[in-house]
């Protein structure tokens, strides 16, 4: 017997294409021929390598209108076979598609609950595909359950056939785990299917743990519940408070779930740790929903800390070398009078005209999805504003990406405004999006013209709808995090509504030492890129973490309002390897805690878990301090690897809310508004009227009109929720 390298059985054996007898014969030959074994081994290796490389190529989707056509065809077909029933009108009305989507997501919900499997008369048709998929090890739970669900639906309708079920089960599972890319973007689920999924679970703390949670949810939902991608506002105004249309993922935009922070007892968890967040994207997003789309934002689009941080509060700037000053204050809580409301604020040092030389790479998404009027044209106008601010110490280059990425403006001096503007003018949209590749190229450009000691920053301008190439959030996030180590920072500017992948953009900017703003209007562009240009471009401290330690002698329970996706584990505070938020020049950070003081009556108390006694130590308040809390702040200087720690104490002097400064009152009204939009269980006595009352009295000079705009948003939300 000799070895024949051209024997096609080698490959057929690896792919399981040989019959049982053929396999036996072949394995006997393998026993005798080392070369044959090597050939099989090498075939297997190449196959696995290819499979792993090919699997990451993205999950393109049909466009909205084309999907609608397919759904229509299904419905039409169903109706021709059920001629007694009048046909449902689909197509021109978006309701038809919506119904279909809801149906899909309902199925998704069902399949997550039921894991039994029964024989499926249709699976035999698919099973042929299943046989060959064993090489692929990337099993997505979502996919498996998707297929299960198809079968589960039939449970009640088709008699089971037990003897076949095991076999089919195996096949279908293997079909489902086939070589489909795991890169899903952010799968989402409609409000309809959330109930079975949102069994209250504690928020796993910590930056990395957050990813764990996200991916677990994503895996669980997988491709089952997909976004409807119905991005425009063709739906009738569905401004209902809780109903359909508000679940994350309806109508195109993608948001991560937010599990609201709960009350904690200092006796059992005395430290509250989080990363700062000066981003304001969520505020613009909410504004766009209310004012432009005339509909309530989805609860998960509302990140309360980003709403609160949108406004310029007049905190005293730092003195000396510290990059920021801190401001602590406390009064009674307007929506829960027996509670206290604590404000923790940091004010970053402003820089005047001595902005360091800047090396900026504009990375611009010109994919087809950017075509709509509110995206690319707004983007051009916004970036022109920024270009006009730049001077001869700066340099700009421009990379575009759609199907492929390319340099459209080589490194150009910032004083050559007309050239930069001309390059912007030439941009036009078309093609699909390969964000991953664009980011690679942009970082390369930034490194090539790196200015030591200056600002080196990639400005990613996109709607975030990456659909080709490196599509997985995790991959992009990893890429951004890796490049941030080389000193290149990232600003993410989100544009447009419809297929805006908020979740991904936020994660990328968080991990890439960056900030994230959502540009919905030219005014917003001016705010972010002109008024706050220094803050957007110049980082004065990085990895800024806040840890608040509550005194159990004075505090029964506390709750951090917002910052849900910035919560960190206690031990991460002192761990310099744990990434956290950046603070830009002149930026300020405000965080609010709601505190139940000891001895106070509160409806919350009955819901708090009892303090469980520990076996070897006691859990009682000790010490004589009557401080309310101590705030620790850790930060690193922009170029530093080692963090510094600051300490501030707060004593409750019993101040009344009405006596607080306008910024305190205004911020509290914004938080209260956010809780109303989120349908928070902690909203207490809040109402849109109460928010309006507090905010209008605390608007102050309001030079740029941001606060009066806020009042308009509250009015609109009130109006929309009244119409319910």
């Amino acid at each position, binding site marked *: 017997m000799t070895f024949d390298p051209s024997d096609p059985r*080698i490959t057929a054996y690896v792919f399981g294409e040989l019959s049982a007898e053929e396999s036996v014969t072949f394995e006997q030959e393998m026993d005798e021929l080392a070369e044959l074994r090597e050939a099989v081994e090498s075939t297997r290796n190449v196959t696995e390598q*290819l499979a792993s490389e090919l699997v990451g190529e993205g999950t*393109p*989707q049909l466009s909205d209108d084309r999907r609608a056509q*397919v759904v229509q065809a299904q419905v039409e077909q169903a109706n021709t076979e059920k001629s007694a029933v009048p046909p449902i009108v689909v197509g021109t009305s978006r309701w038809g598609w919506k119904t279909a989507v809801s149906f899909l997501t309902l199925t998704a919900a069902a399949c997550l609950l039921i894991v039994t499997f029964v024989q499926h008369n*249709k699976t035999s048709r*698919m099973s042929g595909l299943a046989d060959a998929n064993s090489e692929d090890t990337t099993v997505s739970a979502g996919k498996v359950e998707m297929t299960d669900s198809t079968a589960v639906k039939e449970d009640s309708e088709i008699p089971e056939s037990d003897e076949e079920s095991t076999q089919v089960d195996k096949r279908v599972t293997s079909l489902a785990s086939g070589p489909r890319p795991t890169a899903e973007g952010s799968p989402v689920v409609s409000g309809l299917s959330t109930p079975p999924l949102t069994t209250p679970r504690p928020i796993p703390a910590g930056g990395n743990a957050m990813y764990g949670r996200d991916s677990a949810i994503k895996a669980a939902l997988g491709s089952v519940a997909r976004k409807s991608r119905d991005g425009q506002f063709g739906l009738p105004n569905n401004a209902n408070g809780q109903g359909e249309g508000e679940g994350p993922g309806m109508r195109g935009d993608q948001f991560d779930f937010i599990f609201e922070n709960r009350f904690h007892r200092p006796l059992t968890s005395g430290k509250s740790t989080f990363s700062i967040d000066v981003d304001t994207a969520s505020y613009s997003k909410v504004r766009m929903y209310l004012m432009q789309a005339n509909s309530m934002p989805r609860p998960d689009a509302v990140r309360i800390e980003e709403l609160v941080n949108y406004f310029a509060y007049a905190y005293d700037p730092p003195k000396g070398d510290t990059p920021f000053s801190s401001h602590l204050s406390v009064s009674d809580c307007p929506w829960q009078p027996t509670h206290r409301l604590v404000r923790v604020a940091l004010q970053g040092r402003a820089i005047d005209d001595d902005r360091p030389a800047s090396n900026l790479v504009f990375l611009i998404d010109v994919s087809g999805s950017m075509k709509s009027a509110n995206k690319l044209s707004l983007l051009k106008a916004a970036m022109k504003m920024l270009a006009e601010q730049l001077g001869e110490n700066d340099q700009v280059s421009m990379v575009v990406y759609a199907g492929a990425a390319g340099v459209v403006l080589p490194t150009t001096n910032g004083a050559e405004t007309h050239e930069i503007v001309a390059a912007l003018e030439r941009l036009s949209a078309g093609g699909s999006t390969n964000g991953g590749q664009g980011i*690679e190229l942009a970082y390369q450009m930034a490194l090539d013209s790196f200015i030591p000691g200056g600002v080196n920053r990639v400005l990613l301008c996109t709607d975030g709808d990456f659909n080709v*190439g490196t599509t997985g959030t995790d991959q992009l996030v990893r890429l951004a995090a890796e490049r941030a180590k080389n000193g290149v920072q990232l600003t993410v500017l989100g544009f447009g509504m419809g297929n805006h992948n908020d979740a991904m953009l936020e994660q990328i900017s968080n991990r890439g030492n960056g900030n994230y703003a959502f540009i919905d209007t030219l005014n917003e562009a001016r705010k972010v890129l002109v008024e706050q240009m220094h803050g957007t471009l110049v980082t004065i401290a990085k990895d800024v973490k806040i840890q608040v330690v509550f005194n159990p002698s004075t505090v029964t329970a506390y709750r951090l309002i917002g910052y849900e996706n910035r919560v960190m584990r206690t031990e991460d505070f002192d761990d310099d390897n744990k990434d956290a938020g950046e603070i830009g020049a002149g930026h300020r950070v405000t965080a609010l805690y709601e505190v139940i003081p000891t001895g106070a009556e509160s409806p919350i108390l009955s819901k708090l878990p009892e303090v469980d006694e520990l076996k070897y130590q006691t859990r009682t308040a000790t010490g004589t301090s009557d401080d309310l809390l101590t705030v620790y702040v850790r930060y690193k200087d922009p170029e530093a690897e080692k963090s510094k720690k600051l300490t501030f104490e707060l004593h409750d002097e019993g101040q009344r809310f009405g006596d607080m400064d306008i910024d305190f009152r205004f911020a509290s009204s914004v938080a209260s508004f956010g809780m109303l939009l989120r349908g928070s269980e902690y909203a207490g006595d809040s109402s849109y009227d109460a928010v309006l009352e507090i905010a209008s009295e605390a608007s102050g000079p309001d030079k740029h009109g941001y606060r009066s705009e806020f009042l308009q948003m509250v009015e609109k939300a009130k109006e929309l929720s009244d119409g319910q």
Partner: protein
Amino acid sequence: MNSSSKIIADKWLEGVFEQFEAPLLRYVARFLVRHDLAQDVVQDAFVKLCHQDPDALGTSVGAWLFRVCRNRALDVLKKERRMQPMPTHDDSAIGSASDPAEIAEQCDAARSAVRVLRTLPDRQQEVIRLKIEHGLSYREIGDVLGLTASNVGYILHHSIKALREQLIT
């Protein structure tokens, strides 16, 4: 077909759509550079599936969909060529460097196996992709390409052998 089993068929169609939407779009993108044309082809295939007698699908619904998409994509390609006397990059649409996924591959040094794959003749590439990327069986690939299963086995073996040899060196 009674009404209850009809509901099942709809669920089945939805499942098929979920399962094959992305793979078909990626597959068709190798023939058609233009995004909208690729989308049209895949949409048409699904619409056609809705009206198709389920018992006349042949080996499997997957093979059927890939075959319909392939034939349609090739038709579109022919038509496009007629309509555009200026032969641009369309001439080498299969494996053309305008394909975003492939450009990404070229840029990424780590993706060596895919890079070598791109040097193979079109037919070999296609068989490999249908097998490894899309997980079709020999018989299904034969259905899609109009070949016998043993012919597919032969092409696949030689393509992978070529890959192995180039990757080892």
